[in-house]
């Protein structure tokens, strides 16, 4: 049984805040396949295309037949825990702070035996369900989980160190006017978030759900306009030290290609979608990055919502697509800059959303609730890239298969 995670006590202001440390980050290039799978929540191992062997750890050649024709494939997650150990001493600074640490050997049904972290609810001889997760160093690691969910399973310290679970954490949602903000608030509260700050720009315009949202328990509406550096800095000065998860729902979108439109809307799209992200990261990032080892309510994730057309432009939303590509690029730099802290940058990609700016488009369109659910899944599972809805999933698959073919299809003809 997992011990229920209790709300943290108020901090002792005389104690130094713990400085973030990271688990060992070195990997071979081959091993990064595990990281790539973990980032999107897949369980993949190397499969030899010649002899069919499934191997672990990842190598540059097949350990059975020496073929270099190795493919990363979804692999059955079931296995049996055949040995476990509890580590009481470690020279590694990260693990020293977290001892004792359990790890074990799991015999996978797919073939290999793997060394992995253990959830507290699994023991020797158990059938387990394997998961690949990103650790604080941003590398893919395996953890053996119970096959059936157990009570308070997510509270297990080893599992929680691999996720960005909102339980007992304080969350900033940047834009009250986004249609997904309300379902996101409801989901976060249900997931046990301690407090939710909701940014509101230009309250002088009226027309937001200010009254209803401000009336909710554990929710505060704060002034925040991501297009205004002074506004972002003001809010960071106020709550930057207690923002554990930042979810950027601010978005400016207008239909139109490149030739027919001027640069006025494009500028607003870049101001909000790309530079807004930079302003948020500059104002909140350093504070969050310094608090990634700050106990139960440590800072854990910076979440962006992106159009899947960040990968390949939708010419009907040309400037908007460009702003999304810019935001994706910024998020990649942020991953590099947050790497040493372990602060996770999560990108949730979506197809056309079911809102006023995609109104004449045919379904399927992503409802705000579905998008909110994807964000919650990304946090609780500790994912880094999530594709929400059929359109986004389909586009990602085609993009991974052949980006040029996808571009040709999206730019007219070829389908």
């Amino acid at each position, binding site marked *: 049984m997992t011990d229920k995670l209790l709300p943290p006590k108020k901090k002792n202001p005389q104690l130094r805040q713990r400085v973030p440390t990271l688990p060992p980050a070195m990997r071979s290039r081959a091993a990064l396949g595990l990281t790539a799978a973990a980032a999107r929540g897949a369980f993949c191992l190397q499969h030899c295309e010649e002899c069919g062997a499934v191997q672990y750890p990842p190598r540059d050649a097949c350990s059975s037949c020496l073929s270099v024709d190795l493919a990363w494939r979804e692999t059955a997650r079931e296995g049996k825990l055949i040995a476990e150990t509890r580590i009481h001493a470690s020279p590694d600074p990260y693990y020293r702070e977290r001892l004792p640490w359990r790890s074990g050997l799991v015999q996978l049904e797919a073939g290999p035996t793997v060394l992995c972290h253990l959830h507290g609810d699994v023991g020797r001889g158990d059938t387990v369900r394997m998961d690949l997760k990103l650790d604080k160093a941003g590398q893919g690691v395996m953890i053996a989980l119970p096959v059936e969910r157990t009570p308070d399973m997510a509270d297990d310290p080893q599992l929680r160190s691999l996720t960005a679970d909102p339980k007992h954490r304080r969350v900033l949602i940047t834009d009250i006017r986004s249609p997904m903000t309300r379902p996101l608030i409801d989901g976060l509260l249900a997931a046990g978030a301690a407090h939710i700050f909701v940014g509101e720009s*230009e*309250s*002088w*315009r*009226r*027309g937001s759900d200010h009254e209803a949202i401000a009336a909710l328990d554990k929710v505060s509406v704060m*002034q925040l*306009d991501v*297009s*205004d*550096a*002074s*506004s972002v800095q003001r809010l960071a000065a106020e709550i930057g030290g207690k923002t554990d998860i930042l979810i950027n729902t601010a978005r400016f979108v207008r239909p139109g290609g490149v030739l027919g439109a*001027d640069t*006025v*809307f494009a500028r*607003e799209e870049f101001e909000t979608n790309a530079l807004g992200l930079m302003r948020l990261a500059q104002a909140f990032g350093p504070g969050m990055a310094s608090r990634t080892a700050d106990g139960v309510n440590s800072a854990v994730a910076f979440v962006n919502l992106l159009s899947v057309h960040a990968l390949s432009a939708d010419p009907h939303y040309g400037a908007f697509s460009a702003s999304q590509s810019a935001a994706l690029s910024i998020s990649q730099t942020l991953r590099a800059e947050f790497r040493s802290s372990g602060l996770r940058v999560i990108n949730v990609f979506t197809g056309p959303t079911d809102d*006023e700016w995609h109104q004449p488009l045919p379904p399927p369109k992503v409802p705000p609730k579905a998008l909110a659910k994807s964000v919650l899944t990304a946090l609780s599972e500790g994912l880094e890239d999530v594709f929400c809805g059929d359109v986004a999933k389909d586009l990602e698959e085609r993009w991974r298969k052949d980006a040029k073919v996808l571009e040709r299809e999206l730019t007219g003809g070829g389908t």
Partner: protein
Amino acid sequence: MSEAISALAAALGDGSVEVVDLTHTLDPDFPVIVLPPEFGQCARFRMEEVSAYDGRGPAWKWHNISMNEHTGTHFDAPIHWVSGRDVANGAVDEIDPAMFVGPVVVIDCSEGAATDDDFELTPEIIAAWEAEHGTIPAGSWVLMRTDWSKRRGAEYLNMADDGPHSPGPTPAAIELLLKRDIRGFGTETVGTDAGQGAHYTPPYPAHYLLHGAGKFGLQCLSNLDRLPATGAMLIAPPLKIKGGTGSPLRVLALVPQTTASGDRT
């Protein structure tokens, strides 16, 4: 120095003529006009630090600023409106600079606007004002005082489901002012027209009629309660923007101070 300038300098020096600032501070969160979202929008005022006595510029602090021509307290030139598109010298850089300094009269509508968000300036109100203060002199700025500038936040634009609600002139009132050959018309609200001005014929009569006649507009003014009904001088020069349809500006009034007996100096 000429006699007039010497006298003005002396009056400014001894306080018998006061300089009153009619300008709101340019603030990123100050309301701007909000159009239906499919239309292009008025850019908000924004300020980015370029350096602040630091590595980006060790001994100096400065900012990049950006905004629309119609952000904050601002001037409307004739070419701002379709009716004024062909007015000669209708852009801010072309207007005779003599037009930027001139007499100003203030029509006090603050009592009516306090109880009616859609209060209208009508020919009758102008006639009543003229009965008291005399005919509006040609070449005057005419300012509509509503005390709207004292409103803050959402109360300022006063947006509702059917659009904003704020006071303004009727088409007939503007026609009467044009008969008086005024210089321009100014308000404390976000535009020279009423919040519901779209529903008049013509829509937005202040914009349509004034600019069609080559007259100017001033909006987002403040401190109009510190101006006398007549007798003050307005200084309102917009930035010299090539082809500009308007400009944020500092609007100043030279106001003669009343003596203890109530006479103006």
